[in-house]
């Protein structure tokens, strides 16, 4: 995960250096209905390797315009396009299982022949190139903690055992500091009350109650 994050950062820096004039849109063929074409690319980093390769699951990725108005799919190289999109401000979302993509705000300017500006809505970051990358991976399952002593100790039953151990071994230690006479008196008192001998093991507990 750390490697991908740093890689995204690296790419960002790279983009900053390569501030080439780039347009994602293409004005429509003459004579047809008004509208522009949005071209873009979805890049999904493969976990573990340093190269951007497209995993086999790319065929299940959907790109959605304006909350479901249009849905398109990715080509093998990750490119997608929406045709005949009117000028205005639009929203593009990428639905991919296992990744969290920020929706993208897309402004198509009618004045500048369909010049497109894009920005991620989650962090308001502008995109100099229409390449959509996941902000983070999504892990849908809890990860089972591997076996450790701590997990057993922390479980309710482990706590019960621990508590009993404390009572059995630490309490007598505490009682050693007590006045022996006082203790004898207390024990006698208890015997008079007919408390079973088992309870006499825990005079400290009986007292604090």
């Amino acid at each position, binding site marked *: 995960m750390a490697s991908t994050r740093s890689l995204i950062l690296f790419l960002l820096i790279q983009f900053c250096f390569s501030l080439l004039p780039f347009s994602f849109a293409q004005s*429509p063929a003459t004579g*047809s209905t008004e509208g522009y*074409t949005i071209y873009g690319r979805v890049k999904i980093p493969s976990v573990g390797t340093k190269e951007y390769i497209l995993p*086999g699951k790319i*065929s299940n990725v*959907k790109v*959605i315009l*304006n*909350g*479901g*108005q*249009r*849905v398109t*799919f*990715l*080509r*093998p190289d990750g490119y997608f*396009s929406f*045709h*005949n*999109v*009117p000028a205005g*401000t*639009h*929203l593009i*979302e990428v*639905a991919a*299982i*296992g990744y*969290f993509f*920020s*929706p993208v*705000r897309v402004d198509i300017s009618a004045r500048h022949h369909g010049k497109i500006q894009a920005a991620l*809505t*989650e962090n308001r970051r502008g995109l100099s190139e229409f390449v959509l990358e996941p902000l983070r991976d*999504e*892990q*849908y*399952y*809890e990860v*089972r*903690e*591997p*076996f450790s002593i701590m*997990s057993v100790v*922390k*479980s*309710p*039953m482990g*706590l*019960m*055992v621990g508590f*009993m151990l*404390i009572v*059995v071994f630490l309490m007598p230690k505490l009682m050693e500091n007590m006045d022996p006479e006082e203790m004898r008196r207390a024990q006698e008192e208890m015997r008079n009350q007919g408390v079973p*001998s088992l309870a*006499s*093991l825990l005079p400290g507990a009986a007292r*604090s*109650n």
Partner: protein
Amino acid sequence: MAMAIRVFLLLLFFLSSTNIGYSLYEDQVGLMDWHQQYIGKVKHALFHTQKTGRKRVLVSTEENVVASLDLRHGEIFWRHVLGTNDVVDGLDIALGKYVITLSSDGSILRAWNLPDGQMVWETSLQGSKTSKSILYIPKNPKSDKDDLILVFGKGSLHAVSSIDGEVLWRKDFAGESIEVSHIIQSTDKIYVAGFVGSSKFYVYGLNADSGELLKNDHTILPCDTFGELLSVSGDKFVVLDKMRSKILTINIKNGEISYKQTLISDLIKESSGQAVILPSRLPELFALRIDSLVLTIKVTNEDDLVLVDKINNAAAVSDALSISEGQHAFAFIQHEGSNIHLFVKDVNDWNGDLLKESIIIDHQRGNIEKIFINNYVRTDRSYGFRALMVMEDHSLLLVQQGEIVWSREDGLASVVDVTTSELPVEKEGVSVATVEQNLFEWLKGHVLKLKGTLMIASPEDVVAIQAMRLRSSEKSKMTRDHNGFRKLLIVLTRAGKVFALHTGDGRVVWSILLHTLRKTEVCEHPVGLNIYQWQVPHHHALDENPSILVVGRCGPSLAAPAALSFIDAYTGKELNSLRLAHTIAQVIPLPYTDSTEQRLHLIIDIDQHAYLYPRTPEAIDILQREFSNVYWYSVEDDNGIVRGHALKTNCIHKIVDEYCFDFRDLWSIVFPSESEKIIATVTRKSNEVVHTQAKVMTDYDVMYKYVSNNILFVANAAPKATGEIGTATPEEAWLVIYIIDTVTGRILHRMTHHGCQGPVHAVFSENWVVYHYFNLRAHRYEMSVIEVYDQSRADNKDVWKFVLGKHNLTSPISSYYRPEVTTKSQSYFFTHSVKAIEVTLTSKGITSKQLLIGTIGDQVLALDKRFLDPRRTLNPSQAEKEEGIIPLTDSLPIIPQSYITHSLKVEGLRGIVTVPAKLESTSLVFAYGVDLFFTQIAPSRTYDSLTEDFSYALLLLTIVALVAAIFVTWVLSERKDLQEKWK
């Protein structure tokens, strides 16, 4: 000691609170949830069996799904659900490796890789007018040429390369006003044939390489035509005339048009009904349906028509299939009771059948609507045939050698409405678990489970644990369970079929194709509307089975006559059905039941009458008693009016009907049409239980929730901003929110969100409403919450008032006085588009609520209501933190672990239904779309029962260890005592 207890409790609390809400381990998948994938009703099917390896069938469906199915088992190899308005018009295979689909009225052409379903290319086809769309792939092109795809769409003809989707040339026919109906290719020429108007027949000849217009010709037919033009062979067409008494045969040999007319009465003497040409493509032949008779008619080389055969009761006729050089076969189906006869005949040889099989198909599947055939070579080198059948209930069957090889219940891809029913109570004599486990096995199982939780299990152990869990859960039993997890989900599908699904494993318990919702001559396009619980017996009527009510209508318009069906929920038998004389605009389940626990329903028609069901004198009595307490409202979206109604008198009709009532309008709210348009209304669920009316604030102040069943949330958008995102600017968009009391018509709360637009998805629960909309200024989605509190009872805080009886808690809540309410609201950003939104329901309403949000990615996210608390502040005080108030953030968090669909997708998600289980902590969730998904969720974890992975073995071990320790220490202490005494 007290300190120790406190530490212990704190630790316990810490442990239990580390994990908020819903989460799942990977090995728990499938324990409580199930997921079923469907495709919908098949429109086109293509077999791909030429090559060795996997045999498959490619389909496109009415749910806009393109899929590849395994021909052996019917499983899905791959599947793509296109957008909702991306209807698939054509499906074909190009180059033997690409699946080509034409969609969106002939404007989007896509190629999918045949083995894995990866999209290879996508081309947008331009055009200026809408027209019929045709996909045509020449089957035997010259080998040196690019494999061409010819597409007619948007009024132009496009030639597209099938390798990369590039448009090679385009010929616009928009100026010619021709309705193109056929594309014919001959060696290097392409002919486009079609009508202008209904009697002028045009043929254009184009150069196949450049699209250059070579010639055009037209002729005026002697009469107007009816229906579609059917191509019989390369250059011959047939069409019916307007009177449907003549068949016109058109021949365009070498671009010259000639035609002939033949009277149908010449072909068949006793013809009476209306003739229809069936759209099956057969070489030199066509099929004509008159009443129940199907005539196969041969077109000779001289364009004469010869009657070949008459088939009685033919249900479906397939396209012709080329089985060898010059040999074509086609299939048709004959119904005979529950038996179905499948015939495969050679087109040129009518005397013998290539195949004649009779199959028994469950009559709940209805008639066969479509049939597709495919051949294979048997071991003895003869031809065998398999047939893919699309049934009336939208299910898909593959028939081979007289048997159903596999079937798919694809009607479940189009669920219209859902309700639930309890299962029968477990009675004596009903077998419980038959296999009794001995103690050793039981212990062994738990030791295995313990190993699993401690992560020291081997892979075999993991498999054994999974199997054991599934076996031990008893989740698919057919009886009611103590926790109320086992229920029947009763779903109504678009095909008019009702299915009962078991919540344990999602299997179909029973299904019934309702005859009230079947296509008949009187009722051309029946639609199922809703499904209601009609009779829910408990307590004194337990011997009766519960029943459900299905409401349908004869057509999509409100004025179509309605039909009701009553179905036994245990057996799936139709108890009764009614074809109503009146229409249905609204069905109102009343909160009253009769002595057999049948719920009273009011059906409102479009002529301002209300009809009471069930039609019994007892029901009338009950209604008369509550006559003045029945209120309802209606929403007129188009006019922007919300009205409130109450019953008035019996109908004033010529025929006396004591179950019919007139009603009066009590109030109406007319929204200004120039500035507001109703886009969403939502109300509380009538079965929701609210546990407490009061909410204690951090400063020990008490707020009273305004809980009312008669409360309506209305969202209005600016008329300019009712379209999609991107069509309106922030300045011309606003959203106005109303909360309305539906008895009095009082507006309790009104709020405007400037710069916002729909679509609005909302959910109302207890005293709050949460709604999702789009903020154009921030260009993000937002979710807002409004909580309504009753101010009139706010002074009931003083204990002395309660003691002295001066509080007003017992005073009845009346709609006559004006409620003093206050509202608290707050808005948060939310990342995704939303398709559906729902809230968890529990049986007592004690458990905290979670919102279930169906996202645009077809996942369902569970979001704690605490995140949508209007009292969240930036820096909550210590007291507020203890109460569980989360620090304010501008957007709602999306925690991947709280997706209740985990790594699955409910493709084409349309709705989410929640049902309370008997166990208070748990809520059952059913999400439907093209797929179905069911799970149980516990919004505050299962605090009232042990979890599935609770380790009894560990508990037992601990107890044994403790007992042993006690005995050891006891013996030790006795010994010590004795020694002390000897001293």
